[in-house]
C-alpha cells in the first residue's frame, strides 16, 4: 500500500502484533502528526520549505523479507569481529550481531522491536516519557506513528565498551519509507561509541523518492560518556528527516558528529539538553553539498544545569546549486549559572548558484555565563589559489587543498581517530566524484 495514513499505522501494529500500550502511543502520534504544522517556531517559518518532499507514493510498511545487499556496498559494511552491527536493508532488519564483549558486560544491543518484546520493563519508561515529544515536531510525530526499525542500546553502570556499535542502513529499492527510532541508555559512569551509517545502491539518476526518518534519543547517566556519529551518503533521490536529542546527566560527556553528504533534502534537528551540573556536549557538523542538494540543519544546546559547557561547530562547503541552512541556537536558562557555550557556523561557497544561510541565535537568561557565536560565508580566496600555484600545484589541486583545509578545522574536533579518518575519506571521495 502506497502512501501513509492512519490505516498504515494500524496495519503496522497488526503486522508486528504490538502490545496495546504501544498501539495507543502510535495512534495518538498519528493524530498529532495530522494536526501539527510543519514549523512550530515563528523564528524559522520563513526558512522552512518541504515542497520537494512527497509522501504519497512511499511504501511505508516494512517488507517481510530483506532484499539482497548490493555488491558495491560490501566494502563499507565489512564487519569486524570486534564491533557490533545492526544492519538494515530497505525497511527490514537484515542482521544484528553483537560483539562478544557485550554479553559478558550485560550490554543490550538489539533492534527496537525485539527490545519491546524482550525488555519491556527497561524500554517502556522511555516510550512513556519520550526525550522528544511528538507534539514538538510534526516529523517526530510521524516517526512515532510509523517507526519499524532502530536500535536499542543499553549500557549498564560503569561498563566501558571498547569497540564501537554500528547501525548501518542501506537503501536498495526505490520509493521506500524507512522509519527508525533508536534509544540509547547510558548508565552512570558508562562509556560507548555509536555510529550510524547510511548508503544507497547505485540509482543516482532515478527520480523516485525514498524517505529516511530517524529519531535518536540518548539518555546519559551521571558521568557517562558517549561518542556518536551519523554519516550518510545516500543517493540524491532520498529525503532524510533526522531528530536527535540527548538528555545529559551530571558531569556526562557527549560528542556527536553529523556528516550528511548524500540525499536530496536533509532536515536534521539536533539538541542536547544539559540538565545535570557540569555536563558537556560537543556537536560537530560537516556538510558537503553538490548538485541540487538541500540541507536544513538545526542544532540546539540548552544549558539548564550549572557549569555546563557546550560547543557547536558547523562547517559547510556548497557547490553547484546546493543550498545549506544552519540554524544554531544556544539557550542558557536562569539556572545555567557558570555555563560556557560557543556556536560557530562557517560556510564556503564554490559556485555562484550555491547558497548558504546561517541563523546563529542566542537566548541568555542569566549573566554569569560565557557565550559567543561566530558565523561566516565566504568563497575561496583567489590569492590563496595563486599562492599555491606559485608553489607548483595546478589550479584544481590548489582548490582541493583549500577545501580540505576548510574541513580540517571541523574534523579536528572529531574525537575518535577512526571516525575522523572515515569522515575525511568520505569527503575526499565526494570531492573526487564531483569533478
Amino acid at each position: 500500500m502506497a502512501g501513509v495514513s492512519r490505516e498504515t499505522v494500524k496495519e503496522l501494529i497488526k503486522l508486528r502484533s504490538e502490545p496495546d500500550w504501544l498501539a495507543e502511543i502510535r495512534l495518538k502520534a498519528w493524530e498529532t502528526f495530522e494536526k501539527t504544522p510543519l514549523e512550530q517556531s515563528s523564528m524559522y517559518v520563513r526558512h522552512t520549505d518541504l515542497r520537494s518532499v512527497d509522501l504519497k507514493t512511499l511504501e511505508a510498511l516494512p517488507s517481510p523479507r530483506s532484499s539482497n545487499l548490493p555488491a558495491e556496498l560490501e566494502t563499507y559494511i565489512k564487519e569486524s569481529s570486534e564491533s557490533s552491527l545492526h544492519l538494515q536493508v530497505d525497511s527490514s532488519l537484515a542482521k544484528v550481531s553483537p560483539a562478544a564483549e557485550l554479553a559478558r558486560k550485560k550490554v543490550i544491543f538489539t533492534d527496537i522491536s525485539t527490545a519491546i518484546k524482550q525488555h519491556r520493563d527497561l524500554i517502556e519508561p522511555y516510550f512513556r516519557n519520550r526525550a522528544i515529544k511528538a507534539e514538538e515536531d510534526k516529523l517526530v510525530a510521524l516517526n512515532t506513528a510509523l517507526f519499524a526499525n532502530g536500535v536499542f542500546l543499553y549500557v549498564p553502570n560503569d561498563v566501558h565498551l571498547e569497540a564501537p556499535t554500528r547501525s548501518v542502513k542501506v537503501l536498495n529499492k526505490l520509493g521506500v519509507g524507512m522509519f527508525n527510532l533508536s534509544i540509547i541508555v547510558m548508565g552512570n559512569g558508562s562509556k560507548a561509541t555509536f555510529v550510524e551509517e547510511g548508503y544507497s545502491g547505485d540509482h543516482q539518476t532515478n527520480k523516485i523518492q525514498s524517505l529516511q526518518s530517524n529519531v535518536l534519543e540518548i539518555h546519559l547517566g551521571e558521568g557517562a560518556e558517549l561518542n556518536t556519529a551519523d554519516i550518510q551518503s545516500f543517493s540524491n533521490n532520498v529525503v532524510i528527516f533526522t531528530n536527535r536529542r540527548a538528555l545529559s546527566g551530571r558531569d556526562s560527556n557527549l560528542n556527536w558528529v553529523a556528516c550528511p553528504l548524500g540525499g536530496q533534502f536533509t532536515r536534521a534537528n539536533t539538541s542536547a539538553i544539559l540538565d545535570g551540573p557540569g555536563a558537556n556536549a560537543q556537536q560537530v557538523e560537516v556538510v558537503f553539498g553538490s548538485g541540487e542538494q538541500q540541507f536544513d540543519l538545526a542544532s540546539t544546546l540548552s544549558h539548564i544545569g550549572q557549569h555546563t559547557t557546550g560547543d557547536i561547530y558547523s562547517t559547510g562547503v556548497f557547490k553547484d546549486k546546493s543550498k545549506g541552512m544552519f540554524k544554531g541556537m544556544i539557550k542558557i536558562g536562569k539556572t545555567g549559572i557558570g555555563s560556557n557555550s560557543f556556536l560557530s557556523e562557517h560556510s564556503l561557497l564554490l559556485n555562484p548558484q550555491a547558497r548558504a544561510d546561517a541563523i546563529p541565535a542566542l537566548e541568555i537568561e542569566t549573566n554569569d555565563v560565557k557565550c559567543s557565536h561566530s558565523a561566516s560565508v565566504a568563497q575561496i580566496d583567489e590569492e590563496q589559489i595563486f599562492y599555491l600555484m606559485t608553489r607548483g600545484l595546478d589550479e584544481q589541486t590548489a582548490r582541493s587543498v583549500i577545501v580540505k583545509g576548510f574541513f580540517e578545522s571541523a574534523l579536528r574536533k572529531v574525537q575518535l581517530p577512526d571516525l575522523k579518518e572515515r569522515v575525511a575519506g568520505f569527503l575526499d571521495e565526494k570531492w573526487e566524484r564531483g569533478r
Partner: protein
Amino acid sequence: MTTETKELLNFDYSKYDFKDSTDNYTYKSEKGLSSQVVQDISRMKNEPEWMTRFRLKALEHFDSRPMPNWGGDLSEIDFNNIYYYMKPTDRNSQSWEDVPESIRKTFDRLGIPEAEQKFLSGVGAQYESEVVYHSLLKDLEDKGVVFLDTDSGLRKYPDIFKKYFGTVIPPNDNKFAALNSAVWSGGSFVYVPPGVHVEMPLQAYFRINAANMGQFERTLIIVDEGASVHYIEGCTAPVYSKQSIHSAVVEIIAKKSAKVRYTTIQNWSKDVYNLVTKRAYAYEDAAVEWIDANIGSKLTMKYPSVYLLGPRSRAEVISVAYAGRGRHQDAGAKAVHMAPHTYSRITSKSVSKDGGRTSYRGLLHVAKGAHHVTSHVRCDALLLDEESRTDTYPYVEINDDTATISHEATVGKIGEDQIFYLMSRGLSEVEAYNMIVMGFIEPFTKELPMTYAVEMNRLMALEMSGGVG
C-alpha cells in the same frame, strides 16, 4: 552589590517624570480606529483625495493583517483604546518664544533647547501629533533645502511628495506600517537638492504626552545626487499608567553618491509600545548610516534597514539597546544587498538590567548577482544581573558565492575584578558600573554630536541608577 548601591538602585525616580496637562488640545479624535476616524483625520488636514484613498487602503490592509507572532509580546495592545489624532495648538509657532509655556517647560526639564539653539540649524519639535515649533535657518532655505513637517510638505511640495511617499515602505509592508499609513500625522519632510551639503544636523524632538495617545509620525527624507545630510530624531516621554503606542514610519531615499545619516535616541516612557519601520534605499555610491539608540519604552520592535540598490553603495548601522525593569528592546538591523560591490557593517551593543530583556534581530541578505559584497555584523550583549535576559537572532542569507560575510556575537557580564579595580581607584560602585557601561556603548556615543553624547551619557547614568521611567 552593597546595600547602599541597592538602595540607590531601588530609589523612586518617578519624581523626575514628565507630565503635562492635556486640557488645552484643540482637537482630539474619537478613541479607536475606523474608516470614519481615518476620513476625519484626512479632512481635518485638508488633504488631497489621493492621500485619503491611500489612508483608507492602508486601513483595510491593517485590518486584514494578523498581529506578528514573533518579537515581543503585543497581546496587551488595545487598538480601540487609543486616540489616533490630537491637535494641541492651532498653528505652527514661528519662534521659540511662541511655543506654549507648558511645552517649553518640559523641554527645559530635559535640559535641551536654549543651550543648543546656536547648534541647531533647524528645529522641528513634534508635540503630540502636530509640529508646534519649526524654524529653519536662512542659508538652508537659500540652498533650496526643504525641512518641513510632513503635513506641510504634502501641501507645499505635492509633486516630490507624491513621487516618493510610500515607495520605500508601502502600506502593505507590515501591520504597523499599515497602521501608520492609515493615521499618520506629523513627522519631518526633508529634501536636499543635488550637490548640497547640509553642514549642521537637522533635528526634531518628539514627545508623547496624553495617556493612551497614539503617535504616528511619518518622515520622508530625499537626498538628491551628491548631496548630504544628517538628521537627528530624539524622543523623551512622560510616564503614564496605560499603554500607549508609537508607530512611526521613516523612509529615506539616498540617490547616486548621496550621504545620509539618521540618528535616533529613543527614550519613550515605560508604558509605550514603540513599533517603528525605518528603511532606506541607497543607490549607486550612496552611503546610509543609521545610528540608533533604544533606551525607553515597554517594548520596542525596530529594525532600521538599508536596501543597497546601486553598485558600491554602503550601509552602516550602529544600534544600542538598554533594557531596564519590565522593558523589552527587540531591536536590530537589516542590510539587503541587491547590487554588486556593496558594503554593510552592523554593530549592536545591548545592556540588560533588573530583569530587562534585549533581543538583537537582524537580517543580512545577499541577492543572487550581487557579487563581491562585504558585510560584517557584530553583536555584543552585557547582562548586569542574573534576572536579565538577552537574545540574538541573526538571519544570514547568502545567494552569491563571491560574498564575504562575517558575524560575531558575545554575551557577558561585568567582571568583579573590573569593578574592584575601579573602586580601588576611588570610584563608588555605581560610578564603576556606569563607567564600564559607558565604555561598552562608546562605539555609539562617539558617533553622536557632542551635545547629544553628553545628554546620552546623562541619560544612561540616570537609567543605570534606577531609571527615569
